[in-house]
């Protein structure tokens, strides 16, 4: 297949391979040095940065969890005082949700989606760079505030009026609310890029029914982000306005409503869980076939499950509010929807089991983590069914039962697949393999450590231990189990420590990996490890779901894209027929400056509403720099 080439200049049809690679490298690579790195808009460079930063936040959040476990090991312990503990559990939740889980999943999407759909860069690459810097600024804001004893202490859910002007003294709650704005801004930016990349930049022939499941899941996740995040950005902005300029959104005395906050927060907060979980579903569905040596069973039901879960996610928010005193009939609607989400979840599990059953499993580390995922996630899903019931929830809501439940879902359901994904794609990202031996140690420590840490929490919850307490009294029957949980958490953190050591060690001295070390079937394995800046020497053409298995020797490719300037292939939404060539932006430092200007405005606006007025000037300047037209006119063919 060829695309009509540009009028004159160099295309990828002409020269020999070496010459073509040289030209493409020259066109697509970033400059060396500090400013070259800052200006880079290569989706792989930015995604790697994102992943590393998110993993740093994971480690920091883990340290906070350990601190909490030390405090809770004994009744009435004085290791951490109440004020610091409240900051720590707020930081742990906010950090893990907003700075680790969502960003790391989106970062995986930024890295993998363009490679898996066979294009040269993500859509809106400068926005992508901007998004990273905004995310980093938000993370720094939160952690620096923690270092300064001004970290938010109102919980990651920041219920009004506790977070409101009267009861949240100082800037603590403002910092939380503005950190939300930072991270959601960056998440929204990536979501838009992913939707456009998936819908318009797929390789020719990759019609809707041939899209890899990971890409499907990222598409659904991105749509969820686009619909859910505005709710929380609205909520956090109105909270800041209540606190700073005296609006009355959450003040019942002036016609506001304290429950409005909860509705807005959970309208975002529940889809958030699926924003984290659905990419994990995609990872499992993509990694599993590689290690059982057969295509996934039930592609269509899995796609349906992804879409249905994504939509149903928006009808579950009230199940976080079962005890606020809404009409039982209205609440039972949410019981029905929450229960119904077990159907798509069940379909996913059954399809994976069927795939495992029919295949020949190769027990490498990624598969171990996938098995650990199934074991753990089924428990998390079933406890989810339990808390979906209004009466059941009235006993366990806001207890350690719920703490156990969502750690089973988030660690078991999302972090296990994520670790599997890191073991699986690490060779692609760095060109080196991770250690199989350390990986097995990490798996068993994490798997066993996780279950002994979190399973007893179910029992603690049923025994009446509420969440978010910094201590408990010695006469309550929770001491032994809490001590056991605290000791177990050491095992869990040991596992994570080995995992991190393995990453650092393998990055510098791992065994070199070839193009396709796992003999996998999707397009990202059809190029070098790590992929060259232009991803593919020529854009591949796809005619099956598992292109590298059906065409093991030579992928058919297109030609016709220019090699002397950055060009992408645009294809149609449903059938992925080639439609046009589109230029892709050059490197630029302007997104970096725009992010700094935005950060200044957002942080300043915690202190004065005038920040919105004066802070927008530098933003406008940086945006003008960003969009300034330069160089040759668009090639219109």
């Amino acid at each position, binding site marked *: 297949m060829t695309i009509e080439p540009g009028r004159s200049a160099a295309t990828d049809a002409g020269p020999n391979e070496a010459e073509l690679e040289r030209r493409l490298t020259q066109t697509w690579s970033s400059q060396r040095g500090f400013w070259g790195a800052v200006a880079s808009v290569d989706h792989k460079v930015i995604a790697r940065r994102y992943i590393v930063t998110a993993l740093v936040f994971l480690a920091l959040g883990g340290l906070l969890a350990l601190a909490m476990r030390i405090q809770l090991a004994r009744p009435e312990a*004085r290791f951490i005082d109440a004020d610091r503990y409240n900051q720590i559990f707020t930081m742990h939740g906010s950090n893990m949700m907003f700075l680790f889980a969502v960003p790391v999943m989106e970062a995986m999407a930024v890295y993998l989606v363009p490679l898996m759909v066979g294009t040269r860069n993500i859509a809106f690459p400068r926005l992508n760079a901007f998004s990273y810097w905004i995310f980093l600024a938000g993370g720094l804001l939160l952690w620096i505030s923690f270092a300064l004893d001004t970290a938010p202490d109102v919980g990651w859910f920041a219920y009004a009026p506790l977070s409101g002007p009267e009861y949240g003294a100082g800037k603590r709650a403002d910092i939380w609310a503005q950190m939300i704005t930072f991270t959601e801004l960056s998440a929204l930016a990536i979501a838009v890029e992913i939707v456009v990349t998936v819908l318009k930049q797929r390789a020719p022939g990759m019609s809707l029914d041939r899209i890899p499941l990971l890409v499907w899941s990222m598409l659904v996740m991105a749509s969820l982000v686009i619909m859910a995040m505005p709710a929380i950005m609205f909520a956090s902005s109105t909270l800041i306005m209540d606190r700073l300029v005296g609006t009355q959104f959450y003040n019942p005395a002036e016609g506001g409503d304290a429950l409005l906050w909860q509705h807005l927060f959970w309208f975002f907060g529940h889809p958030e869980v699926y924003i984290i979980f659905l990419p994990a579903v995609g990872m499992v569905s993509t990694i599993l076939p590689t290690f059982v040596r057969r295509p996934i069973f*039930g592609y269509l039901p899995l796609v349906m499950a992804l879409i249905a879960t994504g939509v149903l996610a928006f009808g579950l928010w009230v199940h976080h509010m079962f005890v606020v005193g809404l009409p039982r009939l209205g609440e039972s609607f949410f019981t029905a929807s929450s229960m119904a989400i077990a159907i798509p979840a069940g379909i996913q599990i059954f399809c994976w089991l069927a795939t495992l059953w029919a295949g020949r499993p190769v027990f490498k580390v990624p598969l171990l983590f996938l098995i650990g995922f199934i074991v753990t996630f089924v428990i998390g899903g079933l406890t989810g069914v339990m808390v979906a019931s209004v009466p059941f929830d009235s006993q366990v809501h806001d207890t350690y039962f719920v703490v156990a439940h969502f750690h089973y879902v988030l660690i078991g359901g999302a972090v296990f697949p994520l670790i599997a994904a890191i073991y699986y794609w690490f060779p692609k990202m760095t060109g080196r393999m991770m250690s199989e031996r350390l990986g097995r140690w990490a798996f068993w420590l994490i798997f066993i450590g996780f279950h002994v840490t979190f399973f007893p929490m179910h029992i603690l919850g049923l025994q*009446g231990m509420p969440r978010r307490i910094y201590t408990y009294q010695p006469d309550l029957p929770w001491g032994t189990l809490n001590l056991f949980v605290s000791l177990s958490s050491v095992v869990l953190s040991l596992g994570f420590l080995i995992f991190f050591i393995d990453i650092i060690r393998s990055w510098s001295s791992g065994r070199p990996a070839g193009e396709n070390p796992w003999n996998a079937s999707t397009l990202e394995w059809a190029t070098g490890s790590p992929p060259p800046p232009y991803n593919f020497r020529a854009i591949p053409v796809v005619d099956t779901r598992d292109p590298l298995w059906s065409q093991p020797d030579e992928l058919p490719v297109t030609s016709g894209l220019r090699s002397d300037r950055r060009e992408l292939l645009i294809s149609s939404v449903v059938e992925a027929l080639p439609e046009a060539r589109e230029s892709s932006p050059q490197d630029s430092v302007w997104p970096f400056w725009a992010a700094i200007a935005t950060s200044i405005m957002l942080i300043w606006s915690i202190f004065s509403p005038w920040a919105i007025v004066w802070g927008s000037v530098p933003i406008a300047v940086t945006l003008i720099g960003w969009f300034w037209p330069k160089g040759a006119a668009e090639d219109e063919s």
Partner: protein
Amino acid sequence: MKAARAALPISMLLSGCGGIQSALDPQGHSAILLRDLILVIVAICSLVWLAVMIVLVWALLRRRDREPGDGQGSDRGMRIWVSGAVAATVLIISGLTIGSFYTTRGLNGAKNPDVTIRVRAQQWWWQFIYEDTDPARNFQTANELHIPVGKEVRVRLESVDVIHSFWVPSLAGKLDLIPGRENVLTFRAERSGVYRGQCAEFCGLQHSHMAFFIIAESEESYRQWAGAQRQSGAEPVEAETSAGKAVFAARQCAACHTIRGTAAAGTTGPDLTHIGSRRTIAAGLLENTRGSLAAWIADPQTLKPGNNMPIVPLSSDELRQLSAYMESLK
């Protein structure tokens, strides 16, 4: 450390009732229904998990003699199995949902409760106001609720400041107290006993130390107790206690606390008219003894940092007299 040592004596108070705050040890009508629901759902879900695990282990370890099937035959077989599993899921989920709806129906309280109590939660203690048709017979208490066994008790839940949650797992499920709204919870204790409850919605600094006790007793002793609570504070008889009363009036105490029958009429802190009759002080933090009263008055900010009771400078004599007076307010 201090708090840990001071709190130890409570274990004596609680000894003998291990599940004093446990959803698994229900003593009330609603809680028993909820326990049954919990056990049924947990049992069914455990069976489901076991079934999935058996299939998983079988899928991983089964002997594979033939080439793995891209063959249509094995795919068709799997399609039937998967569809069957989905159908089973639909049935189980429907069953659980309908069962949950039935339990919700069963939790419905009676239309006409025997006792109605207004609960005003605040950072970080519970104010309980017993309302009577005759307002003169109203009285209030703090962090301790007496109810008659076997009678429908209705609590009207309001919040003074932020959101709290009223939860006594042994008697009923929880319900939030939300500023600007009133929620109503009805429950019935089936057996007499002492049940611990605790705020279940994060409400700020001392959320952990916001407990209360419900004492379910026979109708007769409940009436006796209520009658006693309606009386004004006991007049001191000994020299030490009357000196304590003078200290109470002269120092900052009276600005926040009420003792009916005296000039003290502050409303910011708990009503102390019958503090000597309560089992605990400081929202379930300490057992009510003269020693812990003295410890609490001397330094409330070390025992429960950040609560709203200030450190009032007192001489050791004043402290002794004041705690003796508090103890005498039976």
